[in-house]
């Protein structure tokens, strides 16, 4: 059974999205990629559940539509 939660959990999802966008403002592509990597590690540890992490990896990997996620 799936343990990964994909329903929305933020009361205001727009604010969560903006917080992520703001974190990238003023960073170049390499810095952004590094930030994302650190963010993934921090959040993965916060979740602390290997089953959930593997499900999240599978969901993210299944959504590949070309190199940049589809829309350019």
């Amino acid at each position: 059974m799936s343990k990964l939660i994909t329903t929305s959990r933020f009361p205001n999802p727009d604010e969560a999205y903006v917080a992520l966008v703001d974190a990238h403002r003023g960073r170049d592509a390499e810095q952004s990629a590094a930030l994302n990597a650190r963010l993934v590690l921090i959040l993965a540890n916060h979740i602390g559940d290997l089953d959930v992490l593997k499900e999240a990896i599978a969901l993210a990997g299944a959504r590949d539509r070309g190199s940049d996620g589809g829309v350019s």
Partner: protein
Amino acid sequence: MRKALYHYAYRRSPDQDARAPVRHPVVVVGAGPVGLAAAIDLALRGVTVVLLDDADRIGEGSRGICYSKRTLEILDRLGVGERLVAQGVTWKLGKVYLGDTLAYAFDLLPEDGHKMPAFINLQQYYLEKALVDRVGEIPAIDLRWKNRVVGVDRRNDHVRLDVETPDGRYRLDADWVIAADGARSAVRDLLGLGFEGLTFEEKFLIADVRMAADFPTERRFWFDPPFHSGQSALMHRQPDNVWRIDLQLGPDADVAEEQKPERVLPRLRRALGDRDFELEWVSIYRFNCRRLARFVHGRVIFAGDSAHQVSPFGARGGNSGIQDAENIAWKLAELMQGRAGGRLIESYDVERMQAADENIGHSTRSTDFIAPRSPAERALRNAVLALAPAAEFARRMVNSGRLSTATVYETPLSTPDQDRFAGSAQLGAPAPDAPMRGRDGRAGYLLERLAGAFELIHVRGGARPDVPAEIKLTVVGEDLSDQGGLFAQRFDATPGASYLLRPDQHLCARWRAYERGKVEAARLRALGG
């Protein structure tokens, strides 16, 4: 393409022949939707108004097309709501597509029992025509076409305006000036006031086309549509078989080049498929999200686009302007009729700057989502779109515009709740509508029965309350009956509960039981204390 639809004649005013400038209580500058609404609202409240406009016609392009439920409730109070709803296209469903796949749909008014729909689409010139017709029925408004303000002199207790007309210049004095003269406000320039905020580099093609099409009556938005690859598109239905199409063009689009028919028509043909259409209006836009630092400058008050500007995603421009007009109209009337002091006018700044910030925030976030500003932002946006079909949390982040709803004012005019209330009614927000039957047995709605004054809605629970003379009393269970129970639900009403509404229908205080002293104190507080 069609030019002006309605022409109005310049007429010489006796003020132009006066030896000294004639003084008026209120001069409104700009006869667009905001200035017209402000003038009508003031006049209905007993204030005479001179309304100046630099043009003599309306109807060049449909411009604003979406009018929200709250705006329609205001326009209904002004006497044109039913006409506009009959004329407009009512809609409440929005759909967002990724490519040609539906990502999600939203319903803007999922509950029944409101007189006004969630939204109508209507060309701005029809709204202006309805308001100008309404002005014609109101003797207290003197509407002067071809009167351009070219000078603003702020005096101690009034404002002196220089006005240019086809017969030359004249001067006019006003106790108060409402500057509703749009994004390129002359009054703002004459006072030397600048904006704070953002201009987006992204360019958008906005076109109105006339065609017979059986597309659904919905707001349809595409990210990366097959007909406009790599960009976004928005399609909206208007009356008269006119359709609004917005196409994102990217930051590098050439504004002059993109307006040429040989560029526009093939783009539209790709979007509309193999059908005949006639181009009504086309424009290329860059959007601003910005506002003045303050809207009240002594006796000059800014309302609408002269005070704040947003991108069109969310329909927050015209709607917020009309809500500005409603906010200032009752306050000026209370002040001029001696029932309030200058602090009430300051509350216009508090309440409408809160609304402007909310609108600018939403509109900026939507524009950023539609047109990401950096490769990292674009990667994040694309990740949201890629996850949207599979994950609900990502669908909730897809932002093609968050549509205008009324601001809930955090305002010193509200008396904080001492009793607990559930329901959808909120302090600082417009009262929710509900079906109500009158004493005459006629079915109708709560909001259309309100007098536009301070009004106490009391739920019958004993004797009829002895409200202060300045407050109109409506007793639910006597004057109005809540037949469907929706009033009780939305206001969490119990016998004896009392709700004080401001003249703009906003809830400013409520109690589980009526007490005259508390009601009078709440009214004084809502007048600025």
